[in-house]
């Protein structure tokens, strides 16, 4: 086939790149906010959550895309749910077996990946109508768009809320008021409302730089 698209054609790269910025699932489509607020008190769970969502979304997209011509239309949502649920349970079991402490921290939120609107949204909007490879890229792109927001929020919250990054203390102990310094951790940062405000700040910065996103 001479008209075959190259694997990384411009169109395919757009699938990967757009969700990072101009069609970001969190800051533009405002999907998946619940988990973004809940797991981002520290960097490590944010990263693990992002990777878990990436694994689930990329594979679910590919599987649904492969099955797209066989799925009976009337039960397509249920088929999508079964595929997502099965993948999420696999991810949960693997986390429990190999990174137990993180899986305890994420607790119910791994299970709640099933209800993450980003995933069903991509399956319904993209995977059902496209070939596996573009669907895979779309999944990776959207999960990365979700992930980088989580990681930025997690980094900010852990740094200002606990004075550490990835569990390592960054703020010198001598800065703290109880040791005679001038600094105190902002306990607010640990609480979910500050995650929403941090996401809000990211949206603000993004819209002021990308005028296309501003609605009339």
């Amino acid at each position, binding site marked *: 086939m001479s008209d075959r698209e190259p694997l990384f054609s411009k169109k395919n790269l757009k699938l990967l790149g757009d969700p990072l910025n101009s069609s970001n699932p969190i800051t533009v489509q405002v999907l998946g906010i619940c988990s973004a607020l809940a797991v981002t008190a520290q960097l490590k769970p944010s990263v693990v959550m992002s990777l878990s969502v990436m694994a689930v979304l990329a594979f679910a997209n590919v599987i649904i895309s492969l099955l797209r011509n*066989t799925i*009976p239309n009337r039960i397509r949502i249920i*088929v999508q749910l079964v595929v997502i649920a099965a993948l999420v*349970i*696999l991810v949960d*079991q693997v986390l429990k077996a190999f990174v137990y402490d993180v899986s305890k921290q994420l607790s119910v939120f791994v299970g709640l990946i099933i209800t993450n609107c980003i995933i069903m949204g991509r399956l319904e909007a993209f995977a059902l109508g496209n070939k596996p490879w573009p669907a895979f890229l779309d999944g990776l792109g959207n999960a990365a768009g979700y992930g980088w927001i989580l990681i930025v929020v997690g980094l900010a919250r852990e740094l200002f809320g606990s004075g550490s990054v990835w569990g390592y203390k960054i703020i010198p102990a001598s800065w703290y008021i109880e040791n005679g310094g001038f600094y105190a951790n902002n306990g607010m940062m640990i*609480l979910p409302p500050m995650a929403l405000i941090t996401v809000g700040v990211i949206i603000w910065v993004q819209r002021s730089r990308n005028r296309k996103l501003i609605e009339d």
Partner: protein
Amino acid sequence: MDRNSNVYTFIYASGMVILVAAILSLAAINLKPFQDKNIEIEKKQNILASVNIEADATNAEEIYAERIVNTYVVNSKGEEVQGNAFTIDLKKERAKPVEEQLLPVFECQIDGNVKYIFPLRGAGLWGPIWGYVSLEDDMSTIYGASFDHQGETPGLGAEIATSNFQDQFKGKEIYDSGKLVSIIVAKSNETAPAEHRVDGISGGTITSKGLEKMLLDDLNAYNAFLNQKK
């Protein structure tokens, strides 16, 4: 075959469910040993935490093997009975009448002294709470305590799992002139002698009281054993 026919839909749905079930059972069976290992390591970490030894997942087993020199099971009369202290399911034991309960005891060697560790299990506000308390060899002074919970409110009841709360227990006495009084987890307006009380958690009263009841009930079950050892 018509993709929108009922027959196709039924066959498709059944096939999919069977396939997914097979994949998931396979994964669950194969990953079970790893998961059980993690739970065992966590239990060892918790036991060690009650004697103020911090262990992480990589060295918990080693430290446990070195420090926990003896484990055995007693009954409410203080007699030693058959059983494996580590694998006893406290949830099942607590459902039995106290005379039939199997009560695990762990002995830990620290600086040449023996500390006795007792597991605890009770109810918080939203679900079970549990923990370990260790006593000096006078069987009255608390050497350390660690608590954990399933779903207490973060920032309120969940504070029982923090070292701020647990450190208060160190050095407290559970006996008052021969009588088991356990530890009162108190509001500031409650009066109890300082050696028998710790400060409760503001906003976590039901969890605090649940913890107090857990300590009293479970230490009571060990009362005969504790008196024997004194």
